[in-house]
């Protein structure tokens, strides 16, 4: 089962079952590193219909380990789309009203060009020869996709965590193309603590002998142990102490007493091991290195002389930020500093903090407060733009 999933995942990296657009050597992508990526491909999904006025497009940006399968079954895991609770016919982001687009980010591993795809120059997987990509590069590739789809202005760009960083980047780089922006549980820069956690994950991957200096695909191996440890450590940061204690406490796993050994005595250990092992079947280890690096490098204020407000000068985009009380990865203060910058830039901004003990992961879950905020915000933004049919 695990081997089969890994096999599917590897196929999806090069020949995705979703839609795909290939940008040839006539359409190179200039990366923030200064390197040129060409040719390259972007895999994506769409849901709903683009209306005649092309005014109902909503771009969803996925998080660190997400993918384009936002509202349909994932081809690798067979599970429902990662934001299935929010997006679909009759749901808050109603695909009967909106044309929803979600692409696998550049550097990802489900069909967009990334370290697991074949480097056309060598005929082998890119591995670490893949240039480092940034949040800005991901957005540049999305802009090319949106152009390809013939959409001038997006009704909304929405995303959580790393997806929220892309939302901020979109709103900053292309304000005229973004009517509304919904950055959720995110920050305008990755904090020192967040970089630290990412570094632990990367070191775990690279310490695994099966990583083979990044050439594990050719060696027929996978750094499962290293990637699983990285995922276990990261997963803790997505939860909260209160939620962990509520769910697992100090409960023992399938046993009545401590075993005085290093088995998974506690339920939390068993849960984390499961999270780690199920992750390695669906995600490419090198891609994990690239994704975490892209987040680490993100610092929107630094790109504007240290003043975040200057990233949003004269913007007409309407913003709605959402944070969660128990999120310690992107605490409310991160969102609040973006709100203050947007206030200083004279932008239209709403900011909602949702009370929950579910930590950073709350943005992916069924949170009524999140849904009512998104719903009210999008409907009023539609009315403000004279799009009554979307309200």
């Amino acid at each position: 089962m695990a081997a089969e999933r890994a096999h599917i995942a590897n196929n999806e990296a090069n020949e995705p079952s979703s839609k795909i657009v290939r940008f040839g050597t006539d359409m190179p992508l200039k990366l923030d590193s200064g390197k040129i990526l060409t040719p390259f491909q972007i895999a994506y999904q769409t849901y709903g219909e683009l209306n005649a006025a092309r005014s109902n497009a909503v771009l969803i940006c996925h998080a660190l380990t997400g993918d384009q399968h936002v509202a349909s079954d994932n081809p690798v895991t067979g599970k429902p789309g990662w934001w299935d609770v929010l997006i679909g016919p009759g749901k808050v982001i109603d695909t009967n009203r909106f044309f929803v687009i979600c692409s696998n980010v550049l550097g990802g591993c489900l069909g967009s060009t990334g370290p697991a795809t074949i480097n056309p120059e060598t005929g082998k997987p890119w591995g670490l020869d893949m240039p480092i990509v940034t949040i800005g590069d991901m957005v540049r590739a999305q802009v090319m996709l949106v152009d390809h789809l013939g959409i001038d202005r997006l009704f909304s760009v929405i995303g959580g965590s790393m997806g929220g960083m892309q939302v901020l980047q979109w709103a900053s780089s292309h304000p005229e193309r973004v009517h509304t922006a919904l950055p959720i549980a995110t920050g305008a820069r990755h904090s020192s603590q967040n970089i630290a956690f990412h570094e632990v994950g990367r070191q775990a991957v690279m310490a695994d002998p099966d990583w083979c200096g990044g050439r594990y695909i050719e060696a027929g191996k996978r750094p499962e142990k290293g990637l699983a440890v990285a995922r276990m450590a990261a997963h803790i940061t997505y939860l909260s102490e209160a939620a962990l204690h509520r769910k697992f406490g100090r409960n023992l796993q399938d046993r009545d007493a401590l075993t005085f050994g290093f088995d998974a005595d506690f339920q939390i250990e068993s849960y984390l091991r499961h999270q780690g092992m199920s992750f390695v079947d669906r995600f490419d280890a090198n891609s994990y290195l690239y994704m975490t690096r892209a987040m680490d490098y993100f610092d929107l204020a630094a790109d504007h002389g240290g003043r975040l407000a200057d990233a949003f000068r004269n913007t007409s985009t309407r913003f709605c930020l959402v944070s969660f009380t128990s999120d310690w990865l992107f605490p409310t203060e991160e969102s609040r500093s973006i709100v203050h910058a947007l206030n200083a830039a004279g932008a239209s901004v709403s900011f909602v903090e949702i009370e929950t003990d579910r930590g950073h992961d709350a943005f992916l879950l069924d949170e009524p407060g999140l849904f009512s905020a998104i719903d009210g915000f999008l409907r009023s933004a539609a009315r403000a733009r004279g799009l009554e049919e979307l309200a």
Partner: protein
Amino acid sequence: MSINSNGPRVDLQLIAGFISPRARVLDVGCGDGDLLAYLEQDKQVDGRGVEISQRGVNECVARGLSAIQGDADKDLVFYPDKGFDYVILSQTLQATRNPREVLEQLLRIGERAIVSFPNFGYWRVRLSLLLRGRMPVTRDLPYSWYDTPNIHFCTIRDFVALCEEVGVTVESAMALDREGHSIGVSMPWWFWNFFGQQAVFVLKR
């Protein structure tokens, strides 16, 4: 100004009466957004709200208003100069930690500030203190002294003195009786200060 007593709350109508159509409005202490919603509907304003309670903010956003969680004492500094035509502080001044600084900020951010507050010089308040010898607890000021959010009560005359002190022009002012009806415009301050249960000021710098 015509007030429809069967329509929305009288205080909302009063404030709306001062505001020109399609103005940029910031409502500081917007609660669950009743005034903003009324202004957007009645005056087609471009409205924003700041509210200290997260519950109020979430309610505002869910009903389609642009609002953020914030504190009048701390967060007004983040707004640019003259970003709004009107900044409204409705029934909130007495709950701020530093009313003078808040007033200065309102007039920095807005071309005009509209401030409404309960008048502590109102005769019922005076009488309550005089006869009972205890801090007044009235229909409109229902809190006990130890749990009130209202830490800086003032009278109409106190407020006028503050305006003079910080060099603010009072463009118009209105005192309201217990039913929310305005008290004769030609009356002197002492009369308003005695019979006015509420006051609304339009200020300009």
